[in-house]
């Protein structure tokens, strides 16, 4: 039996938890002993209710002002507080003490770079797990986040050097490791498809999504009217109202899941052809016969749409979603509105997307390529690879 520590350090998205808990169940079924470390300890309740132990992950101190347009992953680490030497030293010390206390045979990091550094120092086998954005290909210097912008190598090297020096200062080490050395893992568990990988395609194993995020209100299409549009949206997005207006104007039927919306607003926005739910809904059955999926390009929902062969209209809200959206547009299965584009009447734009036969054909082709894909099997493969690391 091996103890496996699954660590989540950065990012607000609950997808991290939703990926890790099913993998932990799989590991437990194999006879192992998984436990968790989250920076936001108020989220550990899901871990508790699943019958696992959860620890707080050490926190850094982000700078008061951050760079709104980071160039590389090193730049993101600077935004997360890697240059606050006292905080980084404190966090690495606390990670080291937590690893010494728990003595895991494997550390699995889902956006947990500081844990990765601590495990390297403690010589504990480590895996990275995620949908790719925080797992840049291991090169020195790290690649640009936006491949279409030409950033001189020297500039990327300088960003990497700032992180390497910050880590060396915080650990009191004279050995100046490169970014590749600091963040390289024994296994890279890419729980996504290559069309969704912000750094893809890369020569790595894409295990595919490992969770179908079950739960959510069961909802069915109410009419036979076409087209059928399913939308999964955040009500705080600046496009939200305009998208609802556009969906209401379309023929056919639309279903919108907007978790976090005031229930009274959801009720007021709903009618016979457009139903708005202020919670998550069970999307599997809806996507099976949907003609278009409108979303922010979160990798979870986008993966479901890809598997169902449904074309996507994407409204990314931040850099990671924008990079995912760009990959999907490249694959010919999606259209997108960039975060900085002015809000317009999206009715004609959505109608045009619905009419595009090439989007439909490409989406079906990508789905056909994955016929027989099973998330259960992907989850088991990922758990097996983690267990193999523990076995050495």
């Amino acid at each position, binding site marked *: 039996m091996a103890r496996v520590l699954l660590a989540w350090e950065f990012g607000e998205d609950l997808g991290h938890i939703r990926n890790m808990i099913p993998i932990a169940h799989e590991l437990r079924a194999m006879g192992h002993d998984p*436990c968790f470390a*989250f*920076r*936001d*300890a*108020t*989220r*550990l*309740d*899901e*871990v*508790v*209710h699943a019958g696992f*132990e*959860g*620890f*707080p*992950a*050490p*926190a850094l*101190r982000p700078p*008061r002002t951050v760079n709104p347009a980071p160039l590389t992953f090193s730049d993101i680490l600077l935004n997360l507080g890697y240059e*606050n*030497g*006292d*905080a980084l*030293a*404190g*966090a690495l*010390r*606390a990670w080291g*003490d*937590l690893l*010494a*206390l*728990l003595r895991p045979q494997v550390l699995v990091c889902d956006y947990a770079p500081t844990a990765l550094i601590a495990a390297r120092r403690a010589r504990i086998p480590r895996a990275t797990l995620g949908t790719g954005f925080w797992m840049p290909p291991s090169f020195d210097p790290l690649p640009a986040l936006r491949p279409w912008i030409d950033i001189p190598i020297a500039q990327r090297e300088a960003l990497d050097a700032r992180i390497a020096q910050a880590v060396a200062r915080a650990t009191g080490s004279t050995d100046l490791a490169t970014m590749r050395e600091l963040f390289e893992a024994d296994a890279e568990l890419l729980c996504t498809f290559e069309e969704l990988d912000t750094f893809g395609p890369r020569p790595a194993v894409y295990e595919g999504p490992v969770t179908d995020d079950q739960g959510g209100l069961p909802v069915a299409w109410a009419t036979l009217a076409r087209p059928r549009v399913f939308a999964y949206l955040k009500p705080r997005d600046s496009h939200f109202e305009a998208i609802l207006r556009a969906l209401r104007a379309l023929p056919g039927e639309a279903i919108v899941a907007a978790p976090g919306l005031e229930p009274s607003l959801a009720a007021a926005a709903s009618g016979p052809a457009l139903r708005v739910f202020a919670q998550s809904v069970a999307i599997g059955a809806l996507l099976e016969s949907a003609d278009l999926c409108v979303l922010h390009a979160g990798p979870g929902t986008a993966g479901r749409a890809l598997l169902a062969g449904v074309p996507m209209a994407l409204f990314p809200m931040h850099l990671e979603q924008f990079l995912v959206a760009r990959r999907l547009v490249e694959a010919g299965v999606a259209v997108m509105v960039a975060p900085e584009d002015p809000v317009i009447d999206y009715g004609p734009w959505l109608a045009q997307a619905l009419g595009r036969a090439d989007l439909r054909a490409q989406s079906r082709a990508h789905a056909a390529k994955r016929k027989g894909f099973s998330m259960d099997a992907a989850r088991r493969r990922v758990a097996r690879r983690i267990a193999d690391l523990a076995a050495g």
Partner: protein
Amino acid sequence: MARIAFAWEMGGELGHAMACSVLARALSRRGHRVAFMFRELHQLALLPEEAARFEVFQAPMSLFDDHGAGPAYSMADILLGAGYDDARKLTGLLGGWLALLDHWNADMVIADSAPTALLAARLRGLPRASYGNGFSIPPRASPLPAFRIDAAMDPSHLARSDARALESVNGALAAFAGPALDILARVFETDEDFLCTFPELDQYGARPAAAYWGPRFGDDVGEPVRWPPHEGSRVIAYVRPASPLVDALIDTLASGPYRVAAYIPELDAARRARLQSARRIVSERPMRLNPLLEGCGLLVSHGGNAALAALMAGVPQLVLPTQYEQFLTGLRLAQVGSGLWLRPEATRAEVSGAIRRLLEEPSFAAAAKAFALRYRKYSPAEQQRRIVERIEDILSRSSTPQGERQ
């Protein structure tokens, strides 16, 4: 020997880590094993070297303090803003504390503003003590009493806040098969409250039948700093760079006839340059107050342990509150007559005027000296010795033998 966990969960001031480290050092010298479970890990760098030997863990905490909780009237409101507004969030926090205490195999918890650590210790039947000034150790009344004195309050507010927080507490306790509490105040039940203040300074007002252990300033830790050999009144500044009056304070000190010893953590280079000179020392680390307070004319701070150290040395204080607890301390010091406090929106003229008054009007120093005289037998070293003794007493009475608890 026992394994003693220091828990600091709420509040971002400098005093928590420093006070814990001083007591931890004393316990460690008695042979006990110490772990810090702290809210802010960057403060470890400021602690005395001896603290480097202790194990350190991140304290479970809510990342979004006061998130939409509105103004706080009682400790219940503060709890609601720190994760107690939702049983699910509190279940996560409590689970984190339980996991840490279980795996580290703690024999006792010393809670410095750490109510959820107290809940975890209660669930495990561990001995536990509160360690803090008056504010973090509310009188155990139901509902928890109001500390806010400057705003009208709906009389039912206290009971409502208590009930909401209690519902979360009981929801979280149920997730770990713990029995429900009847009143919120039970969260704060301990084997001992190390209430480290005096009745005159207690933010809740003097409370009956409470044992006051006296303030917990460690005036013998920190960087040794000497007053520069120049003319001018001596002013100590112990403030945070983000507080609104820092620029007015720096300009006043830099343009006046003062000698200055300042500790302003994470101060940017431009402001440092404005303040630093041959007469004005800007320390990189917390300063040792013990010799510095001798002959000092004024200490400017946010009203934490440093202000109390100044009071006990007969030195007037200027308090620049950045939150309500500090405002209440400022108010108490003004009532003692030894200090003044300023609103965050005070003008530059008000800042320089207050500094001049505190240095020139003899009543402030006289009141501070009278207070110090009243407590002249008070000794921080003796307080610490008694606290250590009481902790060992609690440990020796705890029914479960050490090492067999799980």
